């Protein structure tokens, strides 16, 4: 194999587009990346940014719509025999014992029976599972299951080890200990793996493990930053340098509050990008607002918030996006500041909160569009499918469904919309959405 540029893996202009005709949706746009031997890199980004898809493309499980995958300088054909994946949901065969689960990977490679057994036992020993060889997966905890997943992946001695959110289905403590063990295997050089690519939405995890962080963003999925992590192992999570890096990633992902018209985007069907509603739970949002309201200057460091509130970074970023979109908070330099409107919201009664919320969502182009569509019908009602079809001009099917779900949730909270699930009909609440606003609580829009 020719090694023209010395990269182990190289992606050139990868694009993944789903659908056809009017309903195309770009999952991954123009991704270029190169991975050197000896590198531990992470693909870091919010849910839906295409990390998992990218891993499938890299391993050859999926063929991209456009672009080239080069492995050791040669274009990849079929499934990469030198790469493997550790799955988020383990992907162990429930009817095989722990040992058989590892052995089957070796069997597929044609390793003779005796050697298979020795190697499987050796690997299980190394990940600390000796004594559990004959257990079935259902008898093990999540952390142990993932150890089996690792052992199975190591068994085939991959040059490129891909990890697809391997720790996110585990409880906090198991995840932490498994991360440590992975680092030990990797830095100790006891495994023949030449490079690791980890997909995660957990910012601290990325900074803790990787030499390099490729930050991705969604709509469409693309790489927006390439960040080197120069800290020596073992890394200390309280180290100011560590926190600084976490802060920087948050800063990039949370962005800066833009002028209102940019922030809100355009209505579906109009030129320009429709701003997707972040899929959040409104109670979580009010919780965040109340928390910020109690902070000095109504301000917080976003990376610190994640720790204080015990939420994962993905969820936190979505909540922050919602607060920003609703004009409750401003984001700048990795900080979130509650503005006077947000403060009013946080301190208001349940009734008043609903009114403020209603006023704010009426300004969102997606809601304006939805409400005017409903008003244009005789009975002020529309079927779910009709709206979903219209939304599919902007979003892919799954996302359109999620958008409508969120819109109904927000609209119900604001008492603007009602929805009957059995007939799947969405309608205007009497008095809601008529354009009549009882009291415009526009204390402070973004500048």
């Amino acid at each position, binding site marked *: 194999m020719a090694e023209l540029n010395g990269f182990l893996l190289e992606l050139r202009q990868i694009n993944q587009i789903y659908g056809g005709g009017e309903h195309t949706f770009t999952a991954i746009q123009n991704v270029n990346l190169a991975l050197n031997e000896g590198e531990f890199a992470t693909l870091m980004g919010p849910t839906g940014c295409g990390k998992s898809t990218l891993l*499938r493309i890299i*391993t050859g*499980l999926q063929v991209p719509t456009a672009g080239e995958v080069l492995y050791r300088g040669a274009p990849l*054909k*079929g*499934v990469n*025999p030198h*790469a*493997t*994946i550790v*799955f*988020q*949901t*383990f*992907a162990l*065969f*429930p*009817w*095989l014992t722990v040992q058989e689960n590892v052995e*089957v*990977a070796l*069997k*597929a*490679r*044609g390793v003779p*029976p005796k050697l298979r057994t020795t190697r499987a036992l050796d690997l299980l020993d190394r990940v600390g599972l000796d004594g559990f060889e004959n257990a*079935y*997966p*259902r*008898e093990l905890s999540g952390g142990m*299951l993932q150890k089996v997943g690792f052992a*199975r992946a190591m068994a*085939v001695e991959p040059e490129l080890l891909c990890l697809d959110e391997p720790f996110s289905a585990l409880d906090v403590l198991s995840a932490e200990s498994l991360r440590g063990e992975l680092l030990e295997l990797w830095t100790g050089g006891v495994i023949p793996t030449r490079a690791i690519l980890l997909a995660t939405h957990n910012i601290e995890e990325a900074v803790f493990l990787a030499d390099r962080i490729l930050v991705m963003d969604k709509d469409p999925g693309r790489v927006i930053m390439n960040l080197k992590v120069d800290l020596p192992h073992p890394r200390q999570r309280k180290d100011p340098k560590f926190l600084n890096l976490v802060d920087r990633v948050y800063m990039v992902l949370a962005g800066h509050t833009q002028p209102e018209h940019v922030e809100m985007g355009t209505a579906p069907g109009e030129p320009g990008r429709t701003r997707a509603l972040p899929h959040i739970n409104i109670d979580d949002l009010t919780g965040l607002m109340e928390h910020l309201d109690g902070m000095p200057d109504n301000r917080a460091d976003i990376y610190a918030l994640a720790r204080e509130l015990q939420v994962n970074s993905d969820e936190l970023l979505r909540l922050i996006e919602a607060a920003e979109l609703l004009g409750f908070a401003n984001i700048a330099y990795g900080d979130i500041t509650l503005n006077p409107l947000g403060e009013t919201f946080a301190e208001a009664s349940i009734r008043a909160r609903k009114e403020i919320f209603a006023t704010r969502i009426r300004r969102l182009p997606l809601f304006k569009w939805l409400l005017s569509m409903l008003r244009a019908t005789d009975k002020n009602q529309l079927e779910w499918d009709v709206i979903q079809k219209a939304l599919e001009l902007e979003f892919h099917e799954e996302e359109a469904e999620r958008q409508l779900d969120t819109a109904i949730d927000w609209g119900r909270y604001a008492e603007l919309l009602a929805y009957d*699930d*059995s007939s799947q009909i969405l309608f205007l609440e009497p008095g809601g959405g008529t354009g009549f606003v009882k009291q415009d609580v526009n204390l402070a829009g973004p500048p």
Partner: protein
Amino acid sequence: MRQPSRLFRIAQPLVRPLTWGDAVVFISLAALIYLGVQLGLSAPPAIKGPEISLSPKHLLYYTGLSTGRMAAAYLLSVIFSLIYGTLAANHRRAEKILIPLLDALQTIPILSFLPVVLLSFIAIFPLRLALELSSIFLIFTSQTWNLTFAWYQSLTTIPRNLNQASTIFHFNPWLRFKTLELPFAAISLIWNSMASWAGGWFFLMAAEIFSAGERNFRLPGLGMYLQEAANQGNFMAIGWGVGVLVLTIVILDQLIWRPLLAWSDRFKLQLVETENPPTSWFYDALRSSRLIRGFIRHLFHRPWTYLDEWLASRQPEADRGRRGARLTWLWYFLGLAVGLGLFYEAYQAGVMLWRVSWNQWGIIGMGILTTLGRVTAALGIALAWTLPVGVAIGTNQRLAAWLQPVVQITASVPATALFPILLLVVLGLPGGLNLAAILLMLLGTQWYLLFNIIAGASAIPQDLHYTATLLQLGRWERWRTLILPALFPFAITGAITAAGGAWNASIVAEYTQFGGQTFKTIGIGAAIAESAAAGDYAMLLASTLTMLLTVAAINRLVWHRLYRVAETRYRME
């Protein structure tokens, strides 16, 4: 739909929207049936079957013959299912035709296959062999479709991550089949095998005694024994026959199916321990027997390992793309050739249908309506009694403990075996055969409803029962707000299967020979059975196709919608 049934489980009815495949399928079936009919017209002269002795001494021999036929047909069913299901699951274009075809095939009554099968076998093989093969094939047509669906559905619902793991670790087809596909499908396949055997027993008589035109064919076996006993009105013999049949079914259940179920519990997908795993005394006995273990280790283990290693070391699937391209062309060519042939035959079938007189179409129309009435009545009666009984069994552990085995054994008795007795009782009553036909449909299909309702009732979370009690809901309120909505999806699943079974049973329910006499009533089943027996192939073609269309229409218009409602509104998660 999730079915936490520990008692009985069958393939989910597959309800899908119409596709272009349906049209192709309909045309091809018309063509195929026509082909068979053509063969039928050129068949050899009458054949007298062997005499059968009603002495219980020979019963064992007959039972052996019948069971052997069933087993052969079952083996054929499994092979067919594995191939057909795999093709349908792995080739998108093939799936478009194969699945509607399967859907249609399972609504075709067993007798409509008769001319095609019998006469083509007679054309090729010596008579005795041809008859055996025909019988096996007929049993096969009553066993295989649900198995095929089960395999296909398993293949298409394999969790994505397991599929990807198999690909990323480069499993070859054998390793994938052995480690992933077969274990994943195992439980569903076993339950459906049990349903298949039940279906086979139900149509055993029809598969051992058949007539085509002037020609009567009879094969020695339990089915023929029962029929002969009924013809002679020999109640002793009927009693012996039914007794041995039930005993055979119970033995098979205890020695084969229960152990298989207990063994297959390991193939459950969930990663938690199950509460009540199925148990089997025979399985436990086998497992603890040293003799058996030694036997397996020495005689079976080594060749198996050798074979497994050899198959697993076959070249993993390499550049599938290039070979696929060449194959596609071949497929197109083959498809075109077959398609043209079928079109010609379909045209001929149309010409044949033209010969069916208005009078006969009238009979078919009346038949469809009356049979529809009977199916509805049978379903209504079944629902009326299975709802309270099923809920009682499903919500009451102690009742379930002793009623379950009773119900299972009762359900395993093929209704057709009891039909002669039933006729004797009912024929004197007003309604006569009409009533008997409804009863036979009921006997054959009520169990699907009962088992599903039991499963549904036992799946209602205890919390909800407590809540209902705390809210002091009255009996009726409790049924309306909790039990009926929770049962809805299960009742629909059961009703779809039951209705399908009832339509199929109409061919034995509406036309029967007993005590040397032929009893028949108006109905589509009678029309099919009579035309098959009389060798009126144009009529057979017309009535089969009409039934096929009616059942398909009802599935799409009624069951499809109800199933949707059940899936979206009443699903408990």
